[in-house]
């Protein structure tokens, strides 16, 4: 028999006490990890979405700022238009390196001519695009042909091997983009030509025609020249082009960031209270346990245990309970976040992406360390007190 076996025997012999301590460790670890996964995941999502956008400034029709954020973040389909001529006006502004127009479209709701309902679709101009086109050239050395599409990570072929039906038109899924955790994962990208082809054929093939107003676009993506002042550029665009709003990519998703910050603050306060209460509760439980076992620990000292052994045995019990509770909490947290990811996204109202395995393992490790630290911190004072007690006095009661 050794220290570990003794601690295990004590744990199994005091199931209620052990259960409560483990539960506290469970709550601390699960809450901490879930919060970290959600908040870090949301941050990563926003960053990836902006990277995917690849633009310094996005120009949309005035009043469409919230819509574009919802579309890019949550995949909520939007339709808004502005004159195509705006592209040339913007391109002529000094300090702008590249501009590229986009069309924002959506599939029909519950129509037999569309494989997927309410899907956000983005049509781009392959001649000017700096978002999808470079990725295609880098990965496939090729452009998208007429009728070909690139899907977000969640898009899969529903008709035959590689086909998806949109407005009665079969498009071919050429590739999937890396996941971002945002609405872009449930969106589809194709060229202007494909968009116009779908629109023209939808008149006869679809339940409802896809209408793209002539000489219209939805947004203009801007890449600024190196060293340009983005605020000055935005102001310039506002002056030169009427009825549009330039959104700096650094300001993109501001409302979501504010919402997240508010939520983060609330969660941090709840987490601090839970942590504090757990520490107090575990401390009380260990104090009560140490007091209840005073005589027993006095006996152990009398038959040869050192103060150090008594101290170590109490902390060993604390560590085992913390590990068991913490590991269960972490496993459940990871499982819940993975299984209920979509539910969490829709109920919280912001996207998030699960971290890479390496980052996940790191976060799991931090969660376990937090659980171990918390329980040991709470058990430390009772352990020190009881281990220093005179065995004769401990046995007297």
């Amino acid at each position, binding site marked *: 028999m050794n220290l570990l076996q003794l601690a295990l025997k004590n744990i199994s012999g005091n199931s209620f006490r052990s259960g409560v301590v483990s539960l506290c460790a469970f709550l601390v670890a699960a809450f901490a990890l879930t919060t970290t996964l959600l908040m870090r995941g949301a941050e990563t999502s926003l960053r990836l979405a902006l990277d995917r956008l690849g633009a310094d400034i996005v120009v949309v029709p005035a009043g469409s700022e919230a819509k574009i954020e919802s579309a890019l973040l949550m995949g909520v389909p939007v339709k808004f238009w502005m004159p195509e001529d705006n592209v040339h006006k913007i391109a002529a502004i000094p300090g702008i390196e590249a501009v590229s127009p986009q069309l924002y479209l959506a599939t029909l709701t519950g129509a037999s001519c569309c494989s997927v309902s309410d899907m956000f679709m983005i049509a781009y101009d392959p001649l000017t695009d700096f978002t999808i086109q470079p990725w295609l050239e880098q990965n496939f050395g090729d452009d998208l042909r007429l009728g070909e599409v690139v899907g977000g990570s969640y898009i899969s072929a529903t008709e035959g091997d590689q086909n998806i039906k949109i407005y009665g038109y079969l498009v071919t899924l050429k590739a999937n983009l890396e996941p971002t955790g945002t609405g872009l994962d449930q969106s589809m990208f194709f060229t202007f030509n494909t968009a116009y082809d779908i629109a023209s054929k939808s008149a006869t093939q679809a339940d409802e025609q896809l209408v793209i107003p002539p000489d219209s676009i939805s947004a203009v993506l801007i890449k600024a020249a190196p060293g340009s002042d983005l605020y000055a550029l935005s102001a310039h665009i506002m002056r030169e082009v009427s009825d549009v709003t330039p959104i700096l990519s650094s300001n993109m998703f501001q409302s979501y960031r504010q919402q997240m910050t508010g939520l983060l603050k609330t969660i941090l306060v709840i987490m601090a209270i839970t942590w504090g209460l757990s520490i107090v509760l575990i401390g009380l439980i260990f104090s009560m346990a140490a007091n209840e076992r005073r005589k027993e620990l006095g*006996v152990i*000292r009398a038959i*040869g*245990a050192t*103060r150090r052994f008594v101290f170590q045995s109490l902390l060993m019990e604390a560590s085992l309970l913390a590990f068991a509770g913490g590991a269960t909490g972490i496993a459940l947290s990871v499982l819940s976040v993975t299984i209920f990811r979509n539910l969490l996204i829709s109920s919280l109202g912001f996207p998030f992406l699960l971290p890479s395995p390496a980052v996940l393992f790191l976060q799991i490790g931090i969660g376990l360390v937090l659980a171990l630290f918390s329980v040991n911190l709470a058990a430390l004072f009772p352990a020190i007190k009881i281990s220093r007690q005179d*065995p004769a006095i401990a046995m007297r009661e």
Partner: protein
Amino acid sequence: MIKLDDIIKDYSLGKGSSVSAVRGVSLQINPGEFVIIVGRSGSGKTTLLNLTAGLTRPTSGTVLLDGINLWSLSDKQQSHLRSQKIGFVFQFPSLLPTLTVYENVVLPTVFSTKLNPAQISERAKLLINQVGLGEKLVAFPRQLSAGQQQRVVIARALMNQPEVLLADEPTSNLDERTELEIMDLFRDLHLSLGITIVMVTHTRQLVSYGTRAIEMAEGRIVNGNHRE
């Protein structure tokens, strides 16, 4: 050999006041003796036993075990010495409730032992058989009677082959018949192993089991150092 020299033990009652449990006791116990210390409750006999084992620090005086001053040792050295040289039998139920009979008996070897695992197992089983509980190896303390529990405690006390067995009112919670059985066991152990036994009791009738009786009252030895 145990030697206590002018031992005083005061307990603080707070606010500057204290009570003397042991008042200037000097005592020598030679190897192989069976010393029985008698006295009324509060006479200081249990405190004297605890002082003998180094379980509480004397206010003044020295405690020597085989010539070693217990309080000149570190906690580790003192615990090691206690584990190797002293076996304890307590007045109260002192078995660990979460351990079986076998696990309780081998418990002292967790802290220090000269035996290898096979020897530990063999000796534990032998001792449990000797105290008549060979059938109860995997029983838990709650499944044993008070007398059986005290037998297990005696087996545990002997596990590390100590030189001295200290017993604090080992029969006070037992009925008369079980008390006699336990006392017979002590006598047999003393005779067969030649182990030094120091036993504290308030029952004068048990004095006949020992080779020497010491009577304590108000923290002092009032009648002792005579051999029965």
